[in-house]
């Protein structure tokens, strides 16, 4: 699709006669409420329905800035942005063109963040305008003045009044009414919406389902009677089997088909929902979710299980990773296979617990004592969230290594359709081999070329050994022999180079050589590729590369860089602005991938990074590209 190309005339529509239908290649809209009013559920359901109808879709949760925000406060804005398109959607886009807001304060939050397009249509709950509390009425009036700085087209909706006709507590029903509004405006297939509601309330009574359907229908009816337009984002006929879910669910399913049977974890946002979903299904699948007493115990249990023959995994986020570091070193040293999922959030410290960041790359790679080579992978789509678990498990076992999967809050909660995985029983971990071992079998029997060695597990006669985090020889006997420490360090490290020799060079999106190469990793891929495509359409010489493997990196990067005049990494982590006070070429702290790339390739890789706690928008990246290339022309 050519993004941003559509001219949305929605707000210029005149008052209602017959609703006019606007056919557009894509549309972005948001639903925002106080937290607890269900806007997130509603938005995610809508995204799933759209995907199931055959639209491209991408959802991003809007998460309150506070934990127990007072009602009707900008800090409490909670909801979802949904971007749907005729073709595949890979990121959350730029500004929203339509908003459904449950009060004017949460709307203000989005307005102040610049999230709303100047000509957007806003469906706003009207009850506050005539509220009995004069302070509320005053806030409403002030808000409308503030909002009038833009050309928003505001439609007042009596949500509360309409919902009260059906339920006693509209706080619990408004989101379904809103789903009805959206379903009418976007011409959704009502049966699919109802099926989604049925799935959402599958653990509840038929009564609950029916009440929600009545709310949905009320919303649709109101919209049909009062709205002057509908938006038709045509669906392509679905030619492949697709599934739609969020990244954490995909990860959990991937863990099952990979044959991982123990998820040992400690709750931490935004990783926890992997374990929520697994807890629902794992028992029936011969698996265990073990909620340990802390993150240290969680990884310890996983290491113990893996040592005993079952490759286990642990899921966490930044602060949990910090606690696990000593144990990660032990797994590296004892060559115990292990999969760790780090769903990255904003840091340092407790940081932005619910928001996206890509700041754990260097700490994962280097953030522990001693040399501890490990594999790092970063899925960039929800489909990759599913499949990476199979790859991670396989590498962990074949190489006897720790494999860290770095996802982020954006992938964790984002909903997107993707090609349905064709499951293969061959993905599953092999049975534990408990056959006796020949005399002289050694637990660390390194192949001196590759560093690889077969794993011995308890139960194998003749294999008895003590795994140890102390320096050791091929028999796992403690030794402080200088040459042995040199050799064992080499052996543990060599495995990364061997793994790299099995990888292909990264795919270049766009021409093979060009003026500018953008490079990124993880969830930013969609926004970067879309931005590069827009820039190319404007005649700029931009290509892009996404790295799935960060350690070892995919091969051939230096050679690729040589074919571009400039290279720039785009990341969601902190870097100094080169023009900020005191900052110069020497002291400038750069993005995390940027830093690695400069060290590896000796190329002067520049970076543009942001830590706004939100995904990158393609429009911002286009601006960066234009600036970068015009600066070059000037120079």
């Amino acid at each position, binding site marked *: 699709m050519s993004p941003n190309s559509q001219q949305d005339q929605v707000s210029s529509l005149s008052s209602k006669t017959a609703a006019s239908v606007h056919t557009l290649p894509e549309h972005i809209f948001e639903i925002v409420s106080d937290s607890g009013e269900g806007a997130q559920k509603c938005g995610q359901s809508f995204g799933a329905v759209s995907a*199931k109808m*055959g639209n491209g879709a991408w959802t991003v949760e809007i998460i309150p800035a506070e934990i127990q925000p007072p009602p009707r406060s900008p800090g409490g804005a909670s909801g979802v942005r949904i971007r749907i398109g005729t073709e595949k959607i890979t990121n959350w886009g730029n500004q929203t063109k339509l908003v459904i807001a449950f009060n004017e304060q949460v709307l203000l939050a989005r307005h102040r963040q610049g999230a709303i397009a100047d000509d957007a249509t806003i469906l706003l709950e009207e009850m506050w305008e005539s509220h009995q509390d004069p302070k509320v009425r005053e806030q409403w009036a002030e808000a409308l003045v503030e909002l009038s700085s833009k050309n928003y087209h505001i439609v007042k909706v009596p949500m509360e009044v309409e919902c009260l006709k059906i339920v006693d507590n509209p706080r619990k029903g408004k989101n379904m009414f809103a789903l009805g509004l959206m379903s009418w405006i976007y011409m959704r297939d009502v049966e699919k919406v109802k099926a989604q509601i049925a799935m959402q309330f599958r653990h509840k009574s038929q009564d609950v389902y029916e009440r929600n359907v009545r709310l949905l229908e009320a919303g649709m009816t109101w919209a049909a009677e009062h709205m002057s337009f509908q938006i038709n984002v045509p669906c392509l006929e679905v030619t492949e089997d697709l599934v739609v879910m969020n990244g954490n669910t995909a990860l959990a399913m991937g863990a099952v088909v990979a*044959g991982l049977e*123990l998820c040992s974890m400690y709750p931490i946002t935004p990783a926890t929902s992997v374990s929520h979903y697994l807890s629902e299904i794992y028992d029936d699948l011969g698996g265990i979710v073990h909620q340990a007493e802390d993150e240290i*115990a969680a990884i310890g249990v996983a290491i113990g299980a893996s040592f005993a023959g079952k490759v286990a995994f642990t899921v966490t986020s930044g602060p949990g990773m910090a606690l696990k570091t000593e144990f990660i070193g032990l797994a590296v040293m004892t060559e115990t296979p292990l999969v760790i999922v780090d769903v990255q959030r904003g840091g340092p410290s407790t940081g932005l617990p619910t928001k996206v960041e890509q700041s754990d790359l260097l700490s994962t790679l280097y953030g522990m004592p001693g040399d501890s080579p490990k594999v790092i992978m970063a899925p960039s789509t929800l489909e990759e969230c599913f499949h990476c678990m199979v790859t991670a498990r396989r590498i962990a076992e074949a190489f006897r290594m720790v494999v860290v999967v770095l996802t982020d809050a954006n992938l964790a909660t984002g909903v997107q359709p993707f090609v349905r995985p064709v499951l293969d029983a061959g993905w599953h971990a092999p049975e534990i081999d*408990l056959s006796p071992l020949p005399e002289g079998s050694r637990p660390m029997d390194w192949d001196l070329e590759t560093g690889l060695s077969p794993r011995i597990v*308890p139960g194998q006669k003749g294999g008895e050994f003590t795994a140890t985090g102390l320096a050791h020889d091929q028999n796992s006997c403690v030794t402080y022999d200088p040459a042995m420490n040199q050799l064992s360090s080499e052996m543990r490290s060599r495995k990364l180079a061997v793994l790299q020799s099995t990888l292909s060079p990264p795919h270049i999106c766009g021409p093979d050589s060009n003026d500018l190469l953008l490079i990124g990793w993880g969830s930013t891929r969609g926004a970067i590729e879309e931005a590069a495509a827009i820039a190319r359409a404007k005649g700029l010489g931009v290509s892009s590369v996404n790295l799935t493997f960060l350690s070892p990196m995919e091969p051939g990067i230096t050679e690729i860089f040589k074919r571009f005049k400039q290279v720039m990494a785009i990341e969601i982590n902190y870097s100094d602005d080169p023009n900020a006070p005191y900052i110069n070429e020497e002291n400038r702290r750069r993005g995390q991938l940027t830093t690695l790339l400069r060290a590896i390739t000796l190329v002067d890789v520049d970076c543009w990074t942001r830590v706004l706690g939100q995904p990158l928008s393609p429009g911002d990246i286009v601006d960066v590209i234009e600036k970068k290339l015009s600066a070059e022309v000037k120079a």
Partner: protein
Amino acid sequence: MSSPCSLLECGSTDDRHFEMDDYAGKIARWCPGCGDHAILAAVHRLLAIEQLKPEKTVFVSGIGCSSRFPHYVETYGFHGIHGRALPIATGVKLARPDLDVFVTMGDGDCTSIGAGHWIHAIRYNIDMTVLLLDNNIYGLTKKQTSPTTPQGFKTNTQTKGSFLPPLNPLQTTLGVTNASFVAQTADWMPSHLAATLQAAKAHKGFSFVRILQRCPVFTPDIFAAAIKDPQVTDVLSHPDGIQDANTDKIYKSQVFHNPGDIHEARRLAEGDRVRVGLFFRDESFPRYEELRQVTKRTPEEKMAFINAELDRHAV
């Protein structure tokens, strides 16, 4: 995660017989006179008495002098990191309930850096034999105060004497939900030590044995009185307790204690007097690895299940 099918064992003629020596691993490198030697010998003896298969036995430890233990036993072992033996052991047992798991920890290992894991491992009540080798000091790192160091005892970190009264590991253990086997013994009471280890191994659940352990280098006198004079040690006796005629011959101060009585157990655990024997045992508590037992599924069954899940999420 269930154990490999027991049918595998049927008809196999494993007629191996193991002597104590068969369990001897590397040569123990503890100081001469260290109580750990006596404990190691008792453990070798236990393994021979129980005829545990070396390949199906795992010794897990943390870091400390006492945590060198797994290297000195010819079974599988995992010499972990300081304070974290119990999570590793938990993982081993969750993955492989068919394995016999032993844990050895020092007092710093268990009651200081690993205290959180200790509390929770008691509550999980996983079937494992857990030995706290308590020399009242940090041995490996050379004489720093441990939580069990007596108040006033001079160490390298509290040179004028340790500030606080010591933490009592028995009381602590007895205070935790699901504590199911709590005993105390001493390295210098070989016969009692052996009988206690056997009872601990026989218990189905988390068997916690605190072993008073001499450190001839850093705490040579801490247990001197008890070693010299059998009268200062109370032996808990009961038909359901630790039965050992040799002990009874020497240790005349006997306290009749029913190990089913948790309140009396807690009372006896208090105070400065050295008491050995079985404080508490209850076989009725659920074991975590049993609560979490799941039926093994084939890869094909799992693929079918996930396919059904994908149907639910299908477009």
